[in-house]
C-alpha cells in the first residue's frame, strides 16, 4: 500500500465511524512508517473534516458525528504516544484542550454534543461535562486538565446568566486570562457574548470550530 492508500483507509474509517477499522488502519500506517503527524493531519483530520462538511450539508446527522468522535478517539490513542515521542513537546501544537458543558439549570445537550463532536473531529481534546453543570465544577475541571478553552452552552434564556457568572468568577479568582471562553446556544448572540465579556460565539457548530481554531491559533 502506498502512503496515500494508508491515509485514505484511515479517512474512510473515520468517515464511516468505524472505530476498529480506524484503529487498525492507523496501526497499519504506523507499521508502514507513515509519519504520525501526516496520519493525524491527512488521515484522521481529513476524514473528520469531511464528516463535518457532510453534517453541514444535511447528509450526516448527530449519530454519525458521535461515531466519528469514537473512531477518532480510538485512533488517537494509538497515534498519540508515537506522535509525542517523535515530536517531543509538540502536544500543544496538535490540539487544544477544551472543557465543554451546558451550564447550571439547563438540561439541553444536543447543540453542545454537536459542537463537542465537531471540535473532537477537528483535533481538539474535549472534556464534555454534560448538562446542568455548576460553574464552579466547570472551572475546577478546566484548572485540572489545564484547558485552553471553556465552551459554555445554554438553550434557556433564563440559564444564560450563569455564563456571565462563570466569567465573573474567573475574573474574581484572577484567572480570566488563562482561558478562552466561548458561549453558544439558540438564544446566544454576539451582543450577549460581548455583554458578558466572553471571547466569542458562533451561529453553528462549523463556525464554532473555526472560531476555536482561530482563537487558539491552529
Amino acid at each position, binding site marked *: 500500500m502506498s502512503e496515500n492508500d494508508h491515509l485514505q483507509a484511515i479517512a474512510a474509517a473515520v468517515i464511516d465511524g468505524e472505530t476498529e477499522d480506524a484503529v487498525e488502519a492507523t496501526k497499519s500506517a504506523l507499521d508502514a512508517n507513515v509519519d504520525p503527524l501526516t496520519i493525524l493531519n491527512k488521515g484522521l483530520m481529513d476524514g473528520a473534516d469531511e464528516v463535518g462538511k457532510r453534517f453541514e450539508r444535511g447528509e450526516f446527522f448527530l449519530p454519525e458525528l458521535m461515531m466519528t468522535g469514537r473512531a477518532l478517539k480510538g485512533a488517537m490513542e494509538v497515534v498519540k504516544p508515537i506522535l509525542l515521542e517523535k515530536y517531543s513537546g509538540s502536544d500543544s501544537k496538535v490540539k487544544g484542550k477544551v472543557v465543554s458543558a451546558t451550564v447550571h439549570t439547563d438540561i439541553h445537550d444536543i447543540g453542545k454534543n454537536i459542537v463537542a463532536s465537531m471540535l473532537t473531529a477537528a483535533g481538539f481534546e474535549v472534556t464534555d461535562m454534560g448538562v446542568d453543570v455548576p460553574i464552579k465544577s466547570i472551572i475546577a475541571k478546566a484548572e485540572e486538565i489545564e484547558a485552553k478553552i471553556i465552551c459554555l452552552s445554554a438553550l434557556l434564556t433564563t*440559564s444564560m446568566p450563569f455564563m456571565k457568572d462563570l466569567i465573573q468568577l474567573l475574573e474574581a479568582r484572577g484567572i480570566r486570562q488563562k482561558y478562552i471562553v466561548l458561549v453558544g446556544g439558540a438564544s446566544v448572540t454576539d451582543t450577549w457574548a460581548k455583554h458578558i465579556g466572553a471571547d466569542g460565539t458562533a451561529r453553528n457548530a462549523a463556525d464554532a470550530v473555526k472560531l476555536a481554531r482561530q482563537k487558539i491559533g491552529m
Partner: protein
Amino acid sequence: MLNYLEILDRAHNGPYIAEENWDLEKIAMTTKRLVRKYKIEWDSNHLVTDDAALSEAIWKAGYELAVEVGAYSRSTERIIEISQDEIDSGIQNMPQEVVMGEGKDARTLYARRLNDARAPLSFGGSPGTPVPARMFLANVMSYMREPLIDLATCGTLVEVDGREVRTGNPIEVVSTRRELQYMRQGLKRVGRAGMGMLAAQSSVSELGDLAVAHPDYLRPCDSHLVPVLNELKMDHRNIARAVNSLEYGMVNASLPCVIVGGLGGGPAGSAVVNVASYLIANLTCLADYHILHPIHVRHIATSTRDVLWVINATAQAFARHAPTIIVSDIYPKSGAGTKELLYETAANAIVNAVSGGHLEGCGSADGNLPNCSGLEARLMAEVALASHRMKMSLKEADEFVLQLLPKYEHVFTADGNPGLPFDQVYDTVKIEPLDFWQKMYEEVRTDLKEMGLKL
C-alpha cells in the same frame, strides 16, 4: 397501568447505562436498524403522505423502539424498563377527550382521526418565547381576543421588576406566578375568563410549575408541560411536575422535542423516535395529551420540508393506529411583520389539520425573540379551519403545501428573517395590528384564496 411510584422504583433499580451509550447504542443504533427493517424513507417532494403502508411502517417502528429500549432516567443513569403490555395499556388509557377551561369558554380537546368530522382546536400564544414584562400582557391579549382561538398559551417572562430571571432561582417562582397573573388578567379583560390555558411557560425548572398549582394561578382545568428529554429520557425534576398534578388535577401535556437530524438521524428516524416518545410519555409523563414539536437541527423551525414531513408522519401514525390528543407547536423561522411568517404558518396549519393534530402558535422567529403577535395565530386558525371545512385530502394538502414552500424557503439562512418585536407591529394600547402588518396579512390571505383555499 404503570403508576408513578413504579416508574420511580424502576428509575432507581433498572439496569445502569452511561448516557452516551444510551444515546448512541440504544437510540441511534436501534432507530437506524428499525428504519432499515421497515424500509422507511422520506420524500422531500411529498411532505404529506397518503401512503397508508408508510404510516403503518412508521407506527410499527416507533412502537418497537419504545418496547425495545424503554426510557432513560438521567437522574440515576438507569433504564426505566417498560413492557409491551404496559405500552399497550398506556395506549388504551390515553384520554380520547379532555375538557379544558370552564363555563362558556370551556373547549373539548379530542383525539382526532384522519378525516375527522370535528374541527381542530387552536391554542393562541407564542409558547416559550422570551417576552419582556412591559409587553407581556398586551402580547397575550392579542391572541386571547381572536375569536377563532380556543385556548391560550404564552411566552416566558425573562425579567421581573427589572431583575433577570434565572432558572432554579427563587425568582422563577415569582416569574411563573406573575405570568399566570398576566394570563388570568388578560382572559378577564377580553371577556373569556374561563378559557383553558397551557401555561407556566416561565417555569423552566420544576420550581415555578409547582408554585402555580393553585386555583388563583393554574386551575385544574388548565394544562402544563411535562418534558421528555432528548431522546426518550426523563429526570426526577420533570417527573415531579407530573406527580404534583395528580391530586390537584392539572392536565399533563407531554413535550418531547425530537431533534430532526439528531439521535434519530434524518426525518425517517426522527418520526420513529417521535412515535416512541409519545408511547413512553403516556406512562412517564402521565400525559393527557401530547405536544408535537420536532426541532430542525440547524434551522429550529417547524416549517422546513423535513420537519413538516415528521409532523405529518407522527400525527398520522397516531391518527390511523392509536388516536391520541396531539397539539402541534408551530414555530416558523420568520417573525412578525413579514409575509414569510404568514406563509410558513399556513403550511404548518394545513399539515397539522389534515394529519390529525390540533394547533398551537405561533412561536414566530423560532421562538427566540418577542417578534410574535396574535395576527399570525388568527391566520393559523383560519387556514386550519378552512382546510377542515374543505375536507382537504392528504394529497391535496401535499400539493398545496408544495406551492407554499417557494414563498418562504429562502429564509432558511444563518440570518433568518426575524421581523419586528410585538410593539412594532401592534398598537399595544388598542391591541390591534398596525396598518402595515394588517395589510400584509390581507395580501397573504388574498393570495391563499387565489391558490384555492376557501378562507
